[in-house]
């Protein structure tokens, strides 16, 4: 080994970093030029901010949870209650903001569990191949043989309806998407020549996984997580709407819409405002995810 080789790995690091920074710069350029994705990003930040500081931002923070004041029930939107009050007399605006907390928590928990699990299994399946791959991918196929909502419903069937069971149900199917994604990428990279070259030079499997495969997965995974956040919230709202997620008096948005729908069309505000809220949250994530996809140059279909 010649003395100059000691600098070689260093230079490679610098080169990689420079390339990464350049990619970030280009990515930001593309992203910031795309008005729609900036709007999405702003929306997400706004709602997350509201949800995080719910206690300080809402006009009637004590209306969250089990609050009843029947004298005040069914009031239409007014100066005191911008979005009116619901069937129990609680301020709708407050409950919506607290309800968005549940939505974000759902997305966080589900993705926090399913993404690492799915990525791990995908790497395993793609890298090791053989029987392991077949078993893992067949199991993935089974979980994917039903649409997400239907599968979640079926799993919820086994439990008493509650928000944490719903989260568990959704998490237990969500890992499959990431598993498939990472498996595909791993397989295609594994056969690339530079990986074989690394192996010949004596790189260990772990090194290849961390140096060559994972960085290539990073962009698609980031895009997918962003889009998933919206989709998970959508599925969660659907489950609550059907009565299988958060139970009253919890202020989940889906539950609010379900209850509010009984009072259509006279007391429209109980349905319209939570619907608008959840729509905007999901839309924000979708716009953001789409913009990221453009900026990080990931193909469609992720």
């Amino acid at each position, binding site marked *: 080994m010649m003395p100059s080789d000691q600098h070689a790995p260093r230079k490679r690091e610098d080169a990689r970093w420079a390339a990464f920074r350049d990619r970030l710069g280009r990515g930001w350029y593309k992203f910031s030029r795309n008005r729609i994705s900036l709007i999405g990003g702003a929306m997400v930040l706004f709602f997350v901010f509201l949800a995080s500081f719910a206690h300080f931002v809402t006009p009637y923070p004590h209306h969250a949870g089990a609050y009843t004041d029947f004298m005040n029930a069914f009031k239409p939107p007014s100066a005191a209650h911008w979005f009116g009050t619901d069937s129990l007399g609680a301020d709708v605006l407050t409950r919506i903001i607290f309800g968005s907390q549940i939505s974000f928590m759902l997305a966080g928990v589900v993705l926090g569990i399913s993404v690492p699990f799915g990525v791990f299994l995908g790497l395993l399946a793609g890298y090791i191949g053989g029987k392991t791959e077949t078993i893992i991918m067949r199991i993935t196929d089974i979980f994917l043989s039903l649409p997400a909502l239907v599968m979640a419903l*079926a799993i919820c069937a086994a439990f008493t309806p509650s928000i944490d069971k719903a989260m568990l149900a959704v998490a237990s199917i969500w890992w499959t998407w990431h598993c498939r994604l990472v498996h595909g990428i791993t397989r295609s990279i594994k056969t690339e020549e530079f990986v074989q070259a690394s192996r010949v030079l004596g790189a260990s499997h772990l090194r290849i996984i961390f140096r060559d495969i994972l960085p290539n997965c990073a962009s698609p995974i980031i895009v997918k997580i962003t889009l998933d956040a919206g989709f998970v919230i959508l599925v969660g709202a659907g489950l609550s709407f059907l009565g299988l997620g958060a139970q009253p008096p919890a202020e989940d948005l889906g539950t609010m819409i379900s209850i509010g729908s009984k009072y259509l069309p006279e007391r429209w505000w109980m349905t319209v405002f939570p619907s608008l809220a959840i729509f905007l949250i999901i839309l924000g994530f979708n716009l953001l995810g789409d913009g990221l996809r453009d900026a990080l140059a990931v193909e469609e279909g992720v």
Partner: protein
Amino acid sequence: MKFSYFLARRLLYTILVLLGLSILIFVIARTLPGDPARLALGPFASKEQIENLRREMEMDKPLPVQYWTYITGIFRGDFGLSFQTRRNVALDIAHYLPATVELVLVSILWVLLLGVPLGVMAARYKDRWPDNAVRVLAFVGVAVPPFVVGLVLQLIFSYLLGILPTTGRLGLMTAAPVRYTGLLIVDSLITGNFSALGDALSHIILPSFAIAMTGIGQIARLTRGSMSDVASQDYIEASRGFGIPNRVVAFKYMLKPASIPPLTVLGLTFASELSNAFLVETVFAWPGMAKYGIRAILRKDFNAVMGVVLIIGLAFVVVNLIVDILSGYIDPRIRKRQEEA
């Protein structure tokens, strides 16, 4: 020769996946907490009654035995007894399925008739206002929960404008046509019952559109993307260079290769339609599988849940198979890959 081999392998694989699904759901249903017998009989049932029901439902036997009885029963058409209706789940499903099938079929029509042209238009006027409008529409379509769409449509067209009915498949006053297929539109056409036809159509418009919203958005975006991808391909430039007029290039030479990605996504669109159906049927009180299934879930009627899940799983994999075959038919490159695999 090669193609039928591919087909046979796919069918076998499909069956395996479905079996796997059935095992999964079965295990979840039977091993997890909650006593369905107690739930079915209500809180005032005596211990003896519950035990009787358990024996009747064969819940005292070991799990693999239960599964075996169940699976062999499936192949005989016996889906087990529903806790609620006390009749064969297969009969229940046969009763409720056509309503959902009709709804989903009409939704797919919406997706194809609206989604594809919108996507083509967006690609044609790329980066100009029609493209942006379609893009916004697509985003909205994918982001709005289907039950919200259903409620909003109800609000506008039924409550505010009063031109379309709120719930159900047929008005209370209308006589239902003789039941041949269970699909109201088909049945009323066959029997010439035009008042029923009109009524059925007016009832199906809103829910089918609510279900279709997501799909329309997805297909429009995908068509736009694949059209613009194809438009930048060398072979399109070449065919223009040979003097083929733009309209022919667009509708023939671009559309055909561009239709492949949306086609492959059709399977996923169908999946989202099925999911959406569960939500929308609830909003419109549509007497379909979703209503039956959700009731079964809330009451822990496991045979019913299994039956619904299996039927939906079957429908889904069959649709995927059809989509794969169609793709192979249109695009020789895919056919080649299928034959080689």
